[in-house]
């Protein structure tokens, strides 16, 4: 099997599995219990909160809220902020559904949802961004690294400029594809909340975190026993938290080494795939995208046909094209990333991680080129 869909979910790291197994057996107590077992777990979790903030470059001023998924974290911010009828919020049409869908819900409740614009390279149009945010927006949601194209958006500079003019705006960043991959130094970034997810960095599923500025008030989505500063009632999943942390630590430790490897692999694909398959297009420059994600377009063959042929060879990549040739609607994300509408059904996303090898990449290049050639040969449309 060759797994090239790390951006969807990563294989669980051995360190995380070990922690998870050990902790599931031993840490069965409820961290909210008043006896020593519970107190010990609470202390351990609180220590982890601190260490996680450190990994993100934070000394003080933020809290870690453990939630079940990045989707929940994004919802908690968007649905939980005190945004009133008539207020404006700004999101990107290229955002993940966990940001877009709750925003559309706000829209139905009378809140104005404005759209960020992207330039020809797919990057955020800063002029437009500043025009909007300097004035009236109550919330700006941004992705740090785009989940499909891999774009790294220059959050840091943008946020600083915005905050100079509009101190009251809440800036939420979806860091799911960024955490553990690129350096996030939140200390002087001025962002108000950040979402990170365990299973994208080799931890187990079912656990994620919202890093939230201390003075921000949110309405909880889940009411109950008052855990997580009353923002997220539920028994804390101690084993998942410990395993998440183990994966996060390892990812941060090996980040530079991994990036170097992935950068080389990306170079290798961009150099060698066109030799065997000259039709391939890489729509976005390597310099503006994260090393772990590579978007590619095969203009002549629909991506879903390609991925099923690859899947027969046990090679797994991703596509977000519509499932049917009869469903000819443009893909909203691709439109705003400035991918030509004619190519919307021809996009493949390859995403790599720590277990990806050069050999695997070579096999991928060979197989996809053969499949592509074959399909063109018989004239499949």
């Amino acid at each position, binding site marked *: 099997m060759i797994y090239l869909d790390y951006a969807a979910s990563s294989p669980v790291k051995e360190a995380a599995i070990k922690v998870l197994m050990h902790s599931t057996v031993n840490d069965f107590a409820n961290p909210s219990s008043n006896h020593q077992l519970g107190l010990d777990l609470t202390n351990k979790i609180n220590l982890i909160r601190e260490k996680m903030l450190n990994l993100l470059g934070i000394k003080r001023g933020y809290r870690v809220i453990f939630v079940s998924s990045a989707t929940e974290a994004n919802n908690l911010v968007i649905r939980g902020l005190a945004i009133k009828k008539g207020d404006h919020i700004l999101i990107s049409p290229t955002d993940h559904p966990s940001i877009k869908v709750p925003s559309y819900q706000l829209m139905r409740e009378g809140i104005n949802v404005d759209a960020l614009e992207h330039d020809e390279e797919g990057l955020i149009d800063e002029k437009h961004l500043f025009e909007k945010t300097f004035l009236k927006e109550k919330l700006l949601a941004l992705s740090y690294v785009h989940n499909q194209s891999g774009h790294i958006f220059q959050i840091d500079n943008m946020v600083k400029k915005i905050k100079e003019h509009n101190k009251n705006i809440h800036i939420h960043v979806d860091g799911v594809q960024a955490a553990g991959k690129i350096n996030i130094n939140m200390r002087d970034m001025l962002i108000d909340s950040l979402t990170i997810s365990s299973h994208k960095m080799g931890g187990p599923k079912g656990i994620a975190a919202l890093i939230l500025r201390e003075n921000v008030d949110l309405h909880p989505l889940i009411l109950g026993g008052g855990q997580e500063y009353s923002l997220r009632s539920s028994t804390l999943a101690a084993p998942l938290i410990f395993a998440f942390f183990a994966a996060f630590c390892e990812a941060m430790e090996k980040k530079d080494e991994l990036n170097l490897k992935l950068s080389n692999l990306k170079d290798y694909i961009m150099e060698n795939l066109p030799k065997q398959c000259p039709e391939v297009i890489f729509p976005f420059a390597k310099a503006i995208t994260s090393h772990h994600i590579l978007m590619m377009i095969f203009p002549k063959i629909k991506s879903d046909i390609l991925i099923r042929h690859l899947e*027969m060879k046990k090679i797994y990549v991703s596509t977000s094209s519509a*499932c049917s040739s009869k469903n000819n609607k443009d893909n909203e994300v691709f439109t705003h990333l400035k991918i030509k509408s004619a190519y919307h059904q021809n996009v493949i996303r390859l995403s790599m991680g720590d277990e990806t090898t050069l050999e695997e990449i070579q096999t991928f290049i060979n197989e996809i080129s053969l499949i592509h050639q074959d399909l063109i040969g*018989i004239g499949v449309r």
Partner: protein
Amino acid sequence: MYKLLVISIDELWLKGKNRPAYFRAIKKHVVDVLTHYQDEVIPIKNEEQRLICTSEKGFNQDAILALQKVPGLHSIQPSRAIDLDLEKIIDEVDLELASMREMPRTFKVITKRTNKRFPHNSMEISRYIGHLILKKLPQYKLVVDVHKPQLVVSLKVSDQHIYIATKTYPGIGGQPFNTSGHLITLLSGGFDSPVASFLMNKRGCRQTYLFFYAYPFVGQNVLDKILKLVGILGQYQNGSKLYVLPFGEFQKELSDHIKPDYRTLFFRKYMLEAAALLKSRLKADAIITGDVLSQVSSQTIGNLAIVDQLTPAMVLRPLIGFNKSEIIEISRKINTHDISTIPHDDACAMFAPKHPVLRPDPEYFLSFAKENQVKYEVLLNQVLDQAGIYQISIDGKINQLK
């Protein structure tokens, strides 16, 4: 809940000497449906041209809806039974009216009398009971309307009982299941083939469904559609099967060897040939397709004719003279419409040339088929060996066997 169902049989009057066999077939199907939905033993009595079913628990709505899909039934009436005494009818009608959620304003009485020794004829009974309803049940404020009544009080006078019903559920009619042969039904996921299959249900055919699954050219979503469709169509059968043939590699292989503008035509030819092979394996009788004359380019009379020349089986095309709007209307009625509209990839369209051949050159077509007969028969048999097989139960539940 009603403890009695009176089921009228359709087309029974057409039958002569084979009436008992016909009756047995329909009774078996009714028994199987009721056993499944009622979870109890249901005694069924033949009375003239009717089946009288009785339930201790009372018949549930699901059972009645399922009976509406049993081929050969004319109608199903949840009924009350009384002795042969006209004076007792009025109390039962009172009970019926009292239990109605929406009160009708107009009514009519219709009587059918199979008991010819009963002293009054149908007209007399209807008139008398109509009169009684007006006189004895004035609280319902009903008036008679013989043309468009909101309520029909149906009376059936048999040798021992009078059956009273105010609700009639129409059946699909036609011939009983498994009395008109076993057919291989080609399904595609569009509108036509499920409707063609439905029509042949009415003619009493047992069906085995066949789907050509062109993975990896098409994805799982197409198969999901087919499973949903057979889940609906299978409810008209008393247990049926679906064969899913892996056809992508075969189509690719074939495409490599034929003129591109003949692709759709050859796909059609070999699909029918695969169906004919399955027909032989299952000892079935014929094939059903959803073909409509001239609907698409592969359905021109020339294309249909030349493919039929080479198909070693009878091909039934119940929709051949239908218009699309007529087909869609039926698909709505049988609830396949909303499944058929789900978009799906069509491998034939994927391989299709921009301009498929409309008037095929018989020499090329026939000689290619002849020269490659052995090769493709072997391949098709291999494809059949690899088929996925699904069992569809009487209530449309699907279970993969292989």
